């Protein structure tokens, strides 16, 4: 397939005797909003761990912008534009909210110009866009749950992603807060950032995604528009059983 930003071909991952991913293929077009769903333990997080470089793979290959990245360490994938946010927020606790953004700004967005004047305005611009500028000088410990999620997204933004992988950014949030995060993700997508959303909140995934891929027990069992997925009997079986 040409024009794909991310191509995952026949990706296999084993943990000892357990086959977590079995020849999974996934293509994502530039500018697309892709939803990745599946029951617990279906391999969603394993898949994005392999794509982001946190885990090595046992087979298959991963291309980003047409170039193989299968064996690249995670930080180099980030520099090329694959950035993920974490399911459980992992802020840099000894730093202020703003300093949290300075790390990806310095190490990913401007990786080639270490020691260049600190990009203070850039960090504040991102915080303003995401609604955290009033908290810029606080430590993450002083943030609420939703602010923590926003920090996670803001920090990912500071790495200047081409592809943003959002791993359950909305789990545990209230309905209004989910809308808040969704609005941010829609805005990022309008700016040209391709987004893969992993989510259990169906209302959010179905509203957000142009295309949905379903994983079950390490296999890709379905793919289609949100409407097609909702009507797909295989998906229903995976979630609810026979």
């Amino acid at each position, binding site marked *: 397939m040409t024009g794909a930003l991310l191509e995952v071909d026949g990706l296999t991952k084993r943990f000892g005797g357990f086959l977590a991913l079995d020849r999974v293929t996934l293509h994502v077009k530039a500018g697309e909003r892709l939803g990745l769903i599946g029951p617990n333990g279906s391999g969603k997080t394993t898949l994005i761990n392999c794509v982001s470089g946190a885990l090595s793979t046992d087979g298959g290959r991963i291309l980003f912008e047409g170039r193989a990245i299968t064996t690249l360490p*995670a*930080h180099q994938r980030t520099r090329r534009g694959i950035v993920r946010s974490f399911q459980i927020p992992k802020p840099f606790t000894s*730093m202020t909210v703003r300093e949290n953004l300075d790390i990806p700004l310095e190490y990913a967005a401007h990786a080639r110009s270490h020691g260049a004047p600190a990009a203070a305005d850039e960090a504040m611009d991102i915080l303003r866009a995401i609604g955290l500028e009033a908290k810029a000088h606080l430590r993450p410990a002083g943030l609420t749950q939703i602010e923590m999620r926003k920090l996670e997204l803001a920090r990912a933004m500071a790495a200047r992603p081409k592809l943003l992988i959002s791993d359950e950014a909305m789990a545990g949030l209230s309905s209004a807060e989910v809308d808040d995060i969704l609005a941010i993700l829609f805005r990022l997508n309008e700016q040209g950032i391709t987004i893969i959303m992993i989510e259990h909140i169906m209302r959010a995934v179905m509203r957000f995604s142009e295309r949905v891929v379903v994983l079950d027990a390490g296999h890709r069992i379905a793919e289609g528009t949100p409407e097609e997925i909702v009507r797909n009997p295989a998906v229903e079986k995976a979630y609810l059983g026979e």
Partner: protein
Amino acid sequence: MKTGWALLVGVAVVGGGILLVNLGVNPYAYFAGYVVLQYVVIATAWNILGGYAGYVNFGTPAFFALGAYTAIFLIEAFQAPLPVLILAGGLTSALLGLGIGYLTLRLKGVFFSIATFALSVVLQTLIINWEYVGGAKGFTLIRPSAPFFANWGMLLFTVMVALAVVAVLAARFIERSWIGRGLAALRDNEEAAECMGVPTLRLKLFATTVSGFFLGVAGAPFPYYVTYVEPSSAFNLDYAVNALAMPMIGGTTTWVGPVIGAVLLGTAQQVATVTISSELNLLIVGVVLVLFVVLAPEGITGLARRLMGR
């Protein structure tokens, strides 16, 4: 404070040290001062890995003794002069540091600490069985008359002042550079740091190597200082405890912390050794450390910051 100023202050400290030597103070003051300064180097070096990167090294004796025994080997083999010993001792320990850097690929947290502790035990066993550097019975050094100075105490004191200044300046430079910011990120959360573009492995290898280098540097003049080195003194557990306790008490996130901790604890130990008992000094460390861990986990610098309302 700009780097230029820091260098100036460093030069001033070295100059002050040399001046102090010529004031004709009680020779014991140099003897004790050497130990305190040696701990400034050790605590600063330990903190580059333990404080900045958050990898707690229990194997300080291994690095310190490797520096000392590299020096002994070079004295035995080539009668090498002191500057060569210091450089070689540093480089050998730096190599060992690089080695434990690769351990961090698999070992994190307490498991890393246990591995470094084991390293110290293994290395000590090897040295005990190596006859050439004295083996278990130890190595006796007969010092020639001291060059440039009236005696070795003054010379070694001056050398240690200079080494302490270099180590502290290096730590300060690292802390404020992009390397220091990257190390702080990986200390807070290694996985997140890597995902934000921080080359965590490379930074960890840098930290273990530089930390190892300065620990070796601290150990290299040791044979000249004590003139009799045996494995149990070079691999003394005191180094492991002090290297950890001093930065913890001073504060681990800045270069000032280990200096404060080393000067306070080091001086207290020296005073206690003379006035009370030589066995009591570790007890002091233990009690003070427990107090700090409970009451001021961010050390003296953290306490000061809190009191100043930051």
